[in-house]
């Protein structure tokens, strides 16, 4: 929240609907958790918790029978599980991007959506972490990945990218949780102060940690937030880079490419923004948040999707070019096989959803149409899932010698585990929307014109535009220097 100098464009519209008061923001956001849930929430919660229980069943069955219940078999030992892992981690990345990178670039419009996307990050990373944990086969021995003394008196192999992944993803989860919670504290204090029942007062009061909006606290708080944003930015880039190392450091045609880290990061941002969009549009409609989540924010997100979609498209093209340019027979074959082999349908689904479909966002009419952006965001989510599937399965299914060629077919448990995690994600998300402030109230208030100390102090009734602000600021400075002269002792 350390916005020191507002960046204004010519004719820039206010970030919150004009005429809104500070208390409107408090009421709009807080009432969601204080009133009965709308019917739409119950319907969504019912469906997603059904899928979440499907997940519990699938994983329970998997623990009972072993990972043979999945379709993974020679030569495709990494399939939907790792696809889902990479997909979910990628979805999480937009949350950090919105909360940290846009914060550092002083993109104030992020205040409308940052809480949302941070929550999305957390829940997506929870879903992501499930897959490698199950995929190890004997999840009760998962602690072997951590550098703790064990009965074999051997240490983890720190040269393995899979171990780097353990550190990267668990650090990512922890830092995202801390970032999210720090951002929540002032808003939890708001809910505490509004609470009418003892239960709410106790729970929100305990979570707010006695926050009293003190400026001496705000100073350290803002610094902590800035530091968290500054360290999350390289973190988010490192996490998907490390995920891509899982592939890039192997000597596997189709995986062994140096473009993977930036390519994976761009794809992560792309799919993450699409997921934020899907979830945001549902929440905006169900909870009627049009005052705060405006069309302008949605349009900006569509522009980011257009941009990252083209970055991803460039990476697809570059992969093909390098495969040809390398002159390496196996490398060339993998890519020809990708586009024209038995998995061509998956490849072209990926190209259509990720490269072709987002191009309609060149037209403003499409960027501001809710149904269009909802459909596109879902298509991008599908396309990005297929991207990971194409990278993993098409590279593996035809090994170096034709005797070890095969096809991967998902089993019913593959499908239920995957759709189950979508249920887990939405269940957690709906609970979050219901019980926690889903828009960062303190941050939104901080970007309103009423928050500017010069807003009402000048007689001209300026609206915070730079040129109108000058007289007030000058007057203020004069007053300040006069006061300094009169002060008996330096403060």
């Amino acid at each position, binding site marked *: 929240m*350390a916005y*020191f100098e507002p960046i204004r464009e010519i004719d820039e519209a206010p970030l919150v609907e004009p005429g809104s008061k500070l*208390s409107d923001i*408090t009421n709009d956001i807080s009432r969601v958790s204080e009133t009965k849930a709308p019917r739409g929430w119950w319907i969504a919660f019912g469906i997603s918790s059904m899928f979440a229980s499907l997940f519990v069943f699938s994983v329970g069955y998997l623990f009972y029978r072993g990972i043979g219940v999945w379709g993974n078999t020679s030569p495709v030992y990494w399939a939907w599980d790792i696809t889902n892992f990479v997909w979910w981690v990628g979805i999480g990345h937009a949350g950090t991007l919105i909360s940290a990178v846009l914060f550092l670039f002083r993109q104030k419009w992020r205040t409308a959506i940052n809480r949302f996307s941070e929550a999305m990050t957390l829940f997506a990373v929870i879903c992501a972490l499930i897959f490698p944990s199950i995929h190890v086969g004997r999840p009760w021995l998962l602690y072997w990945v951590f*550098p703790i003394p064990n009965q074999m008196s*051997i*240490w983890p*192999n*720190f*040269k*393995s*990218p899979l*171990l780097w992944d353990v*550190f*990267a993803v668990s*650090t990512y989860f*922890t*830092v995202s949780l*801390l*970032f999210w919670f*720090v951002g929540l504290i*002032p808003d939890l*204090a*708001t809910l505490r*102060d*509004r609470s009418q029942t003892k239960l709410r007062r106790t729970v929100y*009061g305990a979570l707010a*940690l*006695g*926050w*009293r*909006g*003190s*400026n*001496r*606290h*705000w*100073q*350290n708080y803002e*610094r*902590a937030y800035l*530091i*968290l944003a500054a*360290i999350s930015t*390289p*973190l988010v880039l*490192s996490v998907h880079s*490390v995920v891509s190392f899982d592939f890039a450091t192997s000597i596997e045609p189709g995986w062994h490419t140096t473009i993977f880290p930036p390519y994976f990061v761009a794809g992560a941002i792309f799919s993450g923004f699409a997921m934020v969009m899907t979830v945001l549009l549902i929440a905006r409609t169900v909870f009627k948040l049009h005052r705060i989540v405006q069309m302008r924010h949605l349009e900006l997100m569509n522009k980011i999707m257009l941009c990252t979609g083209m970055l991803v498209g460039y990476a697809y093209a570059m992969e093909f070019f390098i495969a040809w340019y390398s002159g390496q027979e196996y490398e060339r074959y993998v890519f020809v096989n990708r586009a024209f082999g038995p998995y061509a349908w998956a490849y072209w689904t990926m190209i259509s959803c990720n490269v072709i479909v987002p191009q309609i966002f060149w037209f403003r009419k499409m960027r501001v149409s809710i149904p269009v952006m909802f459909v596109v965001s879902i298509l991008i989510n599908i396309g990005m899932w297929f991207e990971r599937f194409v990278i993993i399965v098409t590279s593996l299914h035809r090994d170096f010698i034709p005797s070890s060629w095969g096809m991967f077919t998902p089993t019913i448990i593959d499908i239920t585990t995957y759709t189950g995690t979508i249920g887990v994600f939405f269940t957690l998300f709906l609970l979050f929307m219901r019980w926690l402030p889903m828009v960062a109230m*303190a941050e939104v*208030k901080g970007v309103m014109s*009423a*928050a500017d*100390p010069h*807003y009402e*102090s000048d007689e001209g009734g300026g609206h915070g535009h730079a040129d109108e602000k000058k007289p007030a600021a000058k007057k203020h400075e004069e007053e300040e220097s006069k*006061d300094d002269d*009169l002060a*008996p*002792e330096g*403060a």
Partner: protein
Amino acid sequence: MAAHAEKAAAMPRKRTALVLAQFNTTAEVVHAAEKVRDAGYTRWDTHTPFPIHGMDKAMGMSDSRLGWIVLGAALTGLTGAFVMMYWMNGIDYRIVVGGKPPEALPSMVPVMFELTILLSAFGAVIGMFHLNGLPRHNHPIFESDRFKTASDDKFFLSIEAEDPKFNLQKTKALLESSHAAHVEVIEEEV
């Protein structure tokens, strides 16, 4: 003696904890803060629903020291990760993997980076709580019913009774003269 105890139980002794002034706009609370700062008070604070630009200067505050705490945490994470991996793979149980020296530095970089970030994040959050004296669920300021709006749309300035310059009448007068919408005295039980 018994009668005295009974009286004390019925009417707990109270003393003034702080004077609390309410303001309706950010401009008013910033100007009031400047006045209080210039009057030489030291143990006072402003309470706002969001951080106000320019308030640190208006209160005459020095910069946050949090960065130093985080720097310490970051360096601990960096060296800790290096020492851990060097000792585990390079000294305690040497294994050659991929034909590389067991203590090869390049493969340690990702984990060193991640642990630097992890410890910095903990440093930033725990350091912030430490500097702010949080969590603290009980504070005399919460006795005020009006203070509930400090997290909504009102702005407050509080001066503690323990401030060396505190004088109930003068302090109240100072706050009243700075366009406060409401001034109240908060008491705490002894």
